[in-house]
């Protein structure tokens, strides 16, 4: 990869000061994300993967270190990235489409254009039919689809996804994984994806960043050499998947009791 990375993370450290003891969530983390890449951060809880994602987006501030997006130093929340939360937090007083329009309202897009883009994004996630209902009438899987549409509506260069399917049942999760993979291929955007589900990371990613906790740091970055498009039925049995799974599991297992 000779092209300049879209996202360049250098020396990020973050310590949470607690009453009992301080927790080093991230210790001097470096990472380059290539344009158009699907990259996953995998690790046990407490390894700082969500913290890193929040710092990339600007929701949280690092104690030290820098993040460059396309060569530009980031300061605060970037308008070129969007975040998909595990707790989707759709605004209950707005319709489904109203929720998707929120980021466009922030950018001063006029109403007709806003509605057009929001409708388009909801169509991409298969929810055009329910765009006028209140979000709390939707199932969890549908709500997270709205969460994805809300993020896509602002046309982000980098999409940050924080365990977006963590609260969904197995079938819904697999369906959404396939949809996200498809959207990523169609739109050609860069996705940074946080998960603790090893198979999910293999199915989705080009590269998997395995993290370690206490202190939070990157232990290994693995390439996923599986052809695309991948299917849920087939990828699990591939030799590449089996070898990656055992490698990642071994790396994660070695951390047990590591506190």
């Amino acid at each position, binding site marked *: 990869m000779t092209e300049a990375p879209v996202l360049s993370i250098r020396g990020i450290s973050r310590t949470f000061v607690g009453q009992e003891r301080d927790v080093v969530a991230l210790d001097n983390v470096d990472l380059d994300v290539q344009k158009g890449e699907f990259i996953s951060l995998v690790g046990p809880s407490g390894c700082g993967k969500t913290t890193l994602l929040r710092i990339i*987006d600007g929701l949280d501030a690092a104690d030290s270190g820098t993040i460059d997006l396309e060569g530009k130093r980031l300061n605060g929340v970037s*308008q070129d990235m969007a975040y998909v*939360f595990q*707790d989707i937090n759709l*605004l209950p*007083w707005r319709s489904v489409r109203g929720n998707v329009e929120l*980021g466009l309202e922030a*950018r001063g897009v006029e109403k007709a254009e806003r509605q057009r883009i929001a409708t388009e994004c909801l169509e991409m996630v298969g929810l055009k039919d329910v765009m006028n209902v209140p979000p709390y*009438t939707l199932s969890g899987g549908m709500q997270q689809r709205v969460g994805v549409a*809300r993020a896509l509506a602002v046309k982000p260069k980098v999409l940050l996804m924080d365990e977006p399917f963590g609260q969904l049942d197995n079938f819904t999760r697999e369906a959404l994984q396939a949809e996200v993979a498809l959207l990523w291929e169609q739109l050609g955007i860069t996705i940074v994806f946080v998960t603790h589900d090893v198979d999910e990371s293999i199915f989705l990613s080009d590269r998997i960043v395995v993290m370690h906790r206490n202190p939070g740091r990157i232990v290994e970055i693995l390439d996923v050499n599986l052809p695309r498009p991948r299917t849920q039925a087939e990828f699990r049995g591939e030799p590449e998947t089996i070898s990656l799974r055992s490698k990642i599991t071994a790396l994660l297992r070695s951390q047990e009791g590591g506190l």
Partner: protein
Amino acid sequence: MSVNVANVGASGQFKAKRPHRVRNGASFVVYPIIALAVLLGLWWLISSFTNPLLLSSPAAVVRAIANILTHPTTTAALLLSLREMYLGLVLGVAIGFTLGVFIGRFPAVNNVMSPFVNVVNATPLIVAIPLLVIWTGIGMEARVVFTMMVTTFPMLLNTAAGVRNVHKGYVEVAQTLGLSERKTLYKVAIPAAVPYVLAGLRSSLSLAIIGMVVGEMEVSNVGVGWLLLQYGAGLQTAFLLGLICITSIFGVINVTALKIVERTVFRWTTSTR
């Protein structure tokens, strides 16, 4: 946000509960009617062998209500009271909401204001009436201002609490989508505070009636307050009871109107999330 996967579809969310709701719906109507009938029967029975000066019969009270609602002097008094009540309420609620938003949004404003707000809120505002009379005379102004004062505080305190306690997840959504501080306030914090604001409005509505009557009894004798004093002085028990019924109907109308607004305009506040 808790998610119930079974509750799919715009109209489907109550389906699982329907049998339960129907039973409740019936009991909400039938039981109160039975209770009312029993109460009326008892009242009628007791009043039939009691001095009518102490307790008038239901029929006499109904006649008194009809009389109050048709006589021009009394209807004028009622209308005057209503006008003052709603004027004071609208002013109080508007001031309370505006101050509440500022206090809830800006910690600095909260720090400056909260000692004053707490002291005034802890003071029984009726002590301010003589001062109000000195400032504004014994006209309508003093009564409206008094109603305004008593309705401001529940609105202010609830709105401030609502704006201050906006769910952190909503704020982060606004942040990551790039909403400015100002847009976050208008589009996220204030809408999110609506359940608190409605609770404040509910308190203000009941206090408005108290403010109205107290103002009319203490500032200058007009409206419902004046009628109450007249009937009391004249030992007109049936008219007193009738006027009490009319006043409570004012309250019921207010609360019902608010409930209708909650269930239509702000339906999301009553729906499960």
